[in-house]
């Protein structure tokens, strides 16, 4: 197939599908209905590090996790979630919440949307005690 046909086809196809998905309302971020769901989402990534405390964000899109091995965070990745331990994290306040920079190529920047009071309190729990 000539590139002059393939490139526009691929370009229009990708943009068209992405726009259609967004218009259909399929860009919604995952919700963690309660602490139990947040704990399950954490254990899905770290089955051996049982949470000792779970703090759910007010918008239910993220949760702060405390374990005996140190703090971690669960957050929405599209319609699903993932989780990371916070060892080596650098945490900064942003206009919308917190930004966590990790020395992790697969999760370098985690942007958490938090209320001002949450954004003020969460960093104190995020200090790596382990």
């Amino acid at each position: 197939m000539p590139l002059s046909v393939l490139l526009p086809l691929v370009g229009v196809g990708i943009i068209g599908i992405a726009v259609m998905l967004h218009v259909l309302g399929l860009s919604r971020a995952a919700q963690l209905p309660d602490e139990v769901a947040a704990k399950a989402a954490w254990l899905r990534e770290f089955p051996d590090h049982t949470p000792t405390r779970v703090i759910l964000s007010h918008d239910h899109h993220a949760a702060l996790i405390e374990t005996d091995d140190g703090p971690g965070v669960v957050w929405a990745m599209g319609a699903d979630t993932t989780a990371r331990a916070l060892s080596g994290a650098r945490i900064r306040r942003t206009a919308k919440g917190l930004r966590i920079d990790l020395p992790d190529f697969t999760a370098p920047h985690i942007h958490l949307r938090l209320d001002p009071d949450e954004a003020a309190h969460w960093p104190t729990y995020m200090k790596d005690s382990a």
Partner: protein
Amino acid sequence: MSDMITFPDVVNWAVPFFIAAILAELLWIVIKGRGGRYETRDALTSLLMGAGNVASGIVLGFVAYGFFMALWAITPLDLGTSFWTIALCFVLDDLRYYWVHRFGHRIRWVWASHVNHHSSQHYNLTTALRQTWTGTFTFMMVMRAPLVLMGFHPGMVLFVGGLNLIYQFWIHTEAISRLPRWFEAVMNTPSHHRVHHGRNPRYLDCNYAGVFIIWDKLFGTFVPELDSEKVDYGLVHNLGTFNPLRVAFHEWVGIYRDATQPGLGWRERLNYCVMPPGWSHDGSRSTSLDIKARYVSQYPDSAGSPGLPYTEIKGQNTRP
């Protein structure tokens, strides 16, 4: 290649069909309210990975093709281009695919390329297009060398490989549950391949088939989809980014960081490249066999059930 018919670049010609099938699956899911899930950024990343795969083929394809043409120049054999030659080539190439794919899960150097195909937590037709950009660097083209040396023309070998890839497209769906028993027995199907994309301990490292599931049954790597255990799609450690560049290169970066850390011997550095994913010099991480063994020790009743070992002894199951 005097009298050779030219083989079309089938994967590129299939692009309109890919787009149409994705729209059809999406429509089905939206109308029926079941049969799979789509999410914008996940699908966009998958599609961009597919586009990058085609681009990397255009840029780096000459490496493999030059290698095959060099082999073709030295082999005295020529099986011609009859229908049965092409059919035989297709079947043998599918066996080739099985082993490349199995190495892709059991050798970290090859996994670094293949991992991105498994990096989505979704399973729909866009997931099929989430293909590697770095396949050339795995050197797995050597697995096609025997076919060329046996007298199958390189163009034909690449042609049947393209057909293989196109076959695998439609099985990346949750819209089809099970197909007739005879078909499930011989062919790779949505059910078998859903299992392959699972991160559940029992579903790790199985069902490597491309077109014919018989290879997994022959070589002992077949695990059926259990109604009692829903497939959890994705990686053991799911990514925290949708950035296609990070998806494409993250495991290569991981290998580099592991193999160049201070204080290791050369053998440990090598092992970080060639041992199964999850291997570590100090045992601080888990391979799929460790994960299966730990699961069996937590749930002893599951011992010996599909995809799980009989014993819970760590590292005793030494299957490559």
